[in-house]
């Protein structure tokens, strides 16, 4: 199982539809300060079902929708789609490819889809639960966060081990 594609539109600084295609191996993202690299990390977290806006560096969920710039007005919706390869049967679904989509409107309404079929947020959570992927555990290390595993209390470190168990 590996990530094949990330499509972002209206999510944080990615006002226009943007597509990243991934292969197995090491994919590097470079760019100047403030260009949007960590926003890509946030987009992956978000589409996997992250519910804590603090982990997305925001104040309220609406903060992930493109807020406009000096030259552009804000948008009414953020959408992120993540396509994963499932040819190894990693996920208990019939498809060779699984696309998970999340949308948020300024009204506060949300859409969730798996392979274009509407579903609930918890379906996305359940799809990735027990895989050690994403929001829980240690597969997404945010900027400035690597030292955390050393500075947490011994009890918190224990829960990290429990997740690996």
């Amino acid at each position, binding site marked *: 199982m590996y990530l094949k594609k990330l499509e972002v539109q209206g999510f944080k600084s990615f006002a226009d539809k943007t597509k990243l295609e*991934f292969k197995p191996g090491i994919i590097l993202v*470079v760019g100047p300060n403030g260009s949007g690299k960590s926003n890509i990390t946030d987009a992956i977290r978000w589409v996997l079902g992250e519910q804590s806006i603090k982990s997305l560096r925001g104040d309220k969920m609406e903060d992930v929708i493109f807020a406009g710039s000096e030259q552009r007005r804000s948008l009414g919706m953020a959408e992120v789609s993540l396509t994963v390869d499932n040819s190894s049967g990693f996920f208990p679904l019939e498809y060779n490819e699984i696309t998970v989509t999340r949308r948020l409107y300024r009204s506060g309404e949300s859409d969730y889809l798996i392979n274009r079929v509407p579903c609930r947020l918890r379906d996305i959570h359940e799809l990735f639960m027990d895989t050690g992927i994403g929001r829980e555990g240690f597969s997404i290390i945010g900027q400035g966060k690597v030292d955390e595993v050393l500075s947490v209390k011994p009890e918190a470190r224990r829960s990290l081990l429990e997740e690996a*168990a």
Partner: protein
Amino acid sequence: MARKFKETYVQVNQAFREVFVQLFGGGRAELVLCEPDYLLETGVEIIVQPPGKKTQNLSLLSGGERALTAIALLMAMLKVRPSPFCVLDEIESNLDEANVQRFADLLSDFAKETQFIVISHRKGTMEAAHVLYGVTMEETGVSRLVSVKLEDVEKEAS
């Protein structure tokens, strides 16, 4: 339940010992159960001895030594419980050139099992990459993706 935790602890500890030596080029490190008789509640301590130095409080370690130790632990957990992919956002910003190189070599090793999406501008890490994406903001406030040629990368690398 307690037995599963003990098993995981033993495996992660073994991996941690090995990865630590790989990254530090020596020394030793250990995960220690604070209360080995209370497997269901015990916390976990980290003991670190960089090569040639004495075992010390984690807090006395340098910024780079702490980052390298944290990376060793994360990689150890990845080894024991492989995740199909892993996103790393500038985790080596505190490492010097020599340590970045060891980190990049380790990453190349692990990349056979795990797909890594890495945000970095360190030369050693960039050289280990198979695919390169550049993010720009030519129009202020709006991010755009560009494909990156190798010469641009070398200019960007620090």
